[in-house]
């Protein structure tokens, strides 16, 4: 049934998170159909604390409990410091 459907997601890291983990973008294959942003975070990161992290799905800010769908772009970023 799921054979035709993509099960890949794009993970984007920004600013100090990209620097700390050493990469900016990765394409991941997801197995779990009920995967949350938090489970992606645990998958890619084993050292950074989760505090004060802003997360987005498809460039819309969301929270760690949000469910990820195939083809989604998930991003992890620190607090904004622009202006």
């Amino acid at each position, binding site marked *: 049934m799921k054979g035709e459907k993509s099960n890949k997601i794009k993970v984007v890291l*920004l*600013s*100090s998170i990209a620097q700390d983990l050493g990469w900016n973008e990765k394409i991941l294959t997801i197995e779990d159909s009920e995967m949350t942003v938090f489970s992606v975070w645990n998958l890619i990161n084993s050292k950074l604390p989760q505090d004060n992290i802003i997360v987005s799905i498809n*460039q819309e800010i969301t929270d760690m409990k949000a469910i990820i769908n195939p083809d989604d772009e998930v991003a992890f970023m620190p*607090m*904004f*410091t*622009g*202006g």
Partner: protein
Amino acid sequence: MMRWHLCQCLLVDNSKIQFRILKETFNPYKEFELWENFNKSSANSFFIGRVRPFDQYGNDLRKLEIVHYKGMTEKYIERYLMKISRKQDNLSILLLHRIGFIYPDEPIILIAVSANHRGISNKYLQEILEFTKYKVPLWKKEWTFKGSSWVKKNTDLGFEL
């Protein structure tokens, strides 16, 4: 997003909004003049933010780096500017924000707001400025002569409210 690059200007009801994310430095006075030529109102408020010559720890700054999240940054700015344009009629807004490397004294941000009343142009200018500091996906990294570090916290207004 493409329409921004083509027309650089969006009409929302009776208001005109315009913004650009810039990779190169710009002349703020030229920008004011060009923009105000088409947006002359009785009240016109402007702001230029420039790079301080020192970092968050007081060391001499070599350059500032600003990173954005391409697509998302533009989307959040556009949505916010459209929201205030719908709240307030006859407003013209110009917002320029630098990304990449910016050197001490160079402009990082330019805001221009025209309205029928001084209270309105000043109010929205300040709202937009605070918005760019806290609500837009933009990050600052400071490069000194010893190394670089990400800015953890925004500078405050400079006085107690």
